């Protein structure tokens, strides 16, 4: 089937198998390997991207379902070479160790902070419930997201 998608601002047109998962399309066809596959069942959150601005688990969507959609992946989050405040926050607060879950968590958090710009610790922890991290115990992820929220409030542009 033919699909047209815009990924990180670039238009793509591809003929794909109907059963191809969106995450495999991004990883294998477009070679955007920052989006990871951790469970194929939408539970671990490693594959989280933005579809039309909303955080979405790309292992649970077919590529054909994304036809006509605008997609943003971790590779498209920084703008003009400037890291997104969340990317800065994760580095600053040691919010990652092995880094495998990190892109998915950052993409989830980017959507979350758009909705809840000044979240409490409890709200951040609740927002993270669909993303697993086995390395950090979540402690520094919570701090990273808080750090980013504070920076974004100060007016650091997204």
């Amino acid at each position, binding site marked *: 089937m033919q699909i047209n998608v815009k990924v990180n601002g670039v238009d793509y047109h591809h003929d794909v*198998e109907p059963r191809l998962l969106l995450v495999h399309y991004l990883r294998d066809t477009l070679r955007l390997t920052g989006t990871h596959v951790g469970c194929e069942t939408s539970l671990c959150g490693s594959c989280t991207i933005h579809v039309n601005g909303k955080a979405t688990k790309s292992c649970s969507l077919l590529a054909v379902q994304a036809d006509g959609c605008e997609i943003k992946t971790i590779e498209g989050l920084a703008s003009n070479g400037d890291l997104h405040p969340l*990317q800065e926050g994760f*580095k*600053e607060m*040691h919010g990652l160790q*092995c880094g495998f879950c990190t892109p998915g968590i950052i993409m989830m958090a980017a959507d979350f902070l758009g909705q809840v710009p000044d979240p409490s610790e409890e709200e951040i922890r609740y927002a993270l*419930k669909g993303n697993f991290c086995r390395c950090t115990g*979540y402690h520094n992820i919570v701090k990273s997201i808080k750090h980013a929220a504070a920076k974004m409030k100060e007016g650091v542009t997204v």
Partner: protein
Amino acid sequence: MSTTNGLIGQSVKRVEDKRFITGKGKYTDDIILPLQTYAAFVRSIYAHAKIINVDTTAASAMPGVVAIYTGADVADINGVPCGWQVNFKNGDTMKEPKHPLMVADKARHTGDAIAMVIAETREQAKDAAEAVIVDYEELPVVVNAAEAVKPGAPLVHDDVPNNMSFDWELGNPKAEVDEAMQKAEHITTLEFVNQRLVPNAIEPRSYIGSYDAANEKYTLYTSTQNPHLIRLLMCAFVLGIPEHKVRVVGPDVGGGFGSKIYHYTEEALVTWASKKINRPIKWTAERSESFLLDAHGRDHITKAEMGFDKDGNVLALRVKTFANLGAYLSTFGACVPTYLHGTLMQGLYTTPKINIDVTGVFTNTTAVDAYRGAGRPEATYILERLMDLAALEMNIDPAELRFKNFIPPFDGVNQPGYQTQVALQYDSGNYHGVLTTGLQMLGYADFRKQQKEAAQNGKLLGVGFSTYIEACGIAPSAVVGSLGARAGLYEVGQVRVQPTGKVSVFTGAHSHGQGHETTFAQVVADKLGIPMEDVEIIHGDSDSVAFGMGTYGSRSLAVGGSAIVKSIDKIVEKGKKIAAHKLEASADDIEFTAGKFTVKGTDKSIGFADIALTAYVPHVYPKDLEPGLDFSSFYDPANFTYPFGCHIAVVEVEKETGRVTLKRFIAVDDVGNIINPMIVEGQIHGGVIQGVGQALLEGAEYDDNGQLTTGSYMDYCMPRADDFPMIETATQVTPCPHNPLGVKGAGEAGAIGSTPAVVNAVIDALWSGGHKVKDIRMPLTSERVWKAMQGEVIIKN
């Protein structure tokens, strides 16, 4: 510890982060080689079954299929080996049946591989795997280790009587321990299950095997914690291919926690078959395969008794454990419940008589091996549960009971190391210190008041303690060799100073989240007095790193870091000779500080970069000195390192439902000298939550048919962010006396200390409400806690 430019001891932000936060990390599954094919496996749906026939006819005709191999095709290839030999009490060697790459005759656990299907695409390989027809004859199944040794139990391997791989003991003779126990005024007894866990690194295992026919050379990309070890095991023990014709690369790896140490069958299979089809083959586990096949952790059934005199002094410890090994011996499967477990039975206490008896048992389950802490969490669980329970039973304060029994402080320099009853000699320790700090952070006196008030208001608050020790820095080769290790456990560190003074460091350790690219660079830059940007850490490729034993057992900095320091010392020594020649002084009069070689007592000096350039452009140069500035060292430690600490959990138990809420978690850890406090703290956080996960949430369960009923994230409860509070951490520093950095290791501490603290806290909460419960089977779900409060005891595995 000393620093030349302030880098050692600083929370330097990680240099590896940029690639991960921008999506530019490169994990094995991110690699696509030209002409790459994909493998999918046909796996046994039964836990124990004869394989009558495997029909690949239909599958072979499916679109895109390149080749299909079955157990019969690999029957003549060796199995994957066990890296550690354990002996029976009578001296007989452990039973070590073959772990074949794929099975041809019978499957011994659900998921045992029967056929490998290779096709042009991932989907075609999976389609064709489904078309392979296997005829089985089901056999009786055994999953529980204590059941499996009973007469008449089904045999996992026909030639292993009673399913017993080994029957092992350590410590004082049993008769002596029995005698000491008889003198005890009080004996605390616990019978419990330390449940099976699934490691759950978020990156599933992934391998690409490829063969370059022109150069007759194999390459294996693998999500491993130890590329050189995989190469050694695969070449020398399994495939019999020459080591110098195999390159093993462990690129970015998405978490290991022990589960990526082992040499897995799929690694050898994709490598072997890549030559057969002369094309690269990738296999990446699905999450359900990760659950079924990544070596599991723990799974002990234990009875432990601790005897005390009337004042609460420990007189004796007696432990009997049945360790479930799974269907096959994994790489360190035999070592974990014995030499990484029995050797920790001294704990922090002066217990004079100790005996531990461990039976290693085969069952129709996934192999069990090291999982974060590996034997040491199980040992700590025994000791620390006994301590808190004994305190409740004897009505002594649990902190007081520990202070009374602690080994007195010793630094390993002015006071000798502490010789335990179970083979090890501790290097240095100050156990009173960590508990004192923990009590201060908790506000212990206030807490007990709050607890009383809460009980009066019908609320159950509890506090649990765990003062742990672990043996890390694995390990002195001669010692582990005498204990059955089939490999040396040194590490390799090469420091190559480039002509311009920039430095490339090659380490045999492998980073999969630990931040070596930062910590090791801090050490090198500090020791050489140069900026961190001038140092690059290279790891994970057997073609660039000379050799290595990899990362596990909290060993990387203590062993790998020490190897790097050894090479730096050689660089400095040679640099002094070059400087002496240029400055017309004696090498003995040259000192190296802050990146400069100086003639003592003068202002005559030469910078590090100038010396580097001179070494590569040796025009004005000592006559008998080789050019170049590049040294490699092997470091074999003198002893293990012994980090220790105090973990304290505070919980609230909801009376009506048994729901446990972790209110506070305090971790005071002494991991020796600290290079990067931020990274150490991060390691503690992660370990703590894994340990708390075991206490409250996680558990792998097999049904009586050997089906893993917790084989997905819907059934296996992973710790999530909203399950926990922030963790309160502190560190104490008692340097390791026997390695050059004075470091001990921080990777496993969190997972070792935390589990018993949480369970103890729940038991304490229940006692505060009058429920004198001794044990609740982990994980402590609401149902189990509630039932325990109603007087129901759950001990079934």
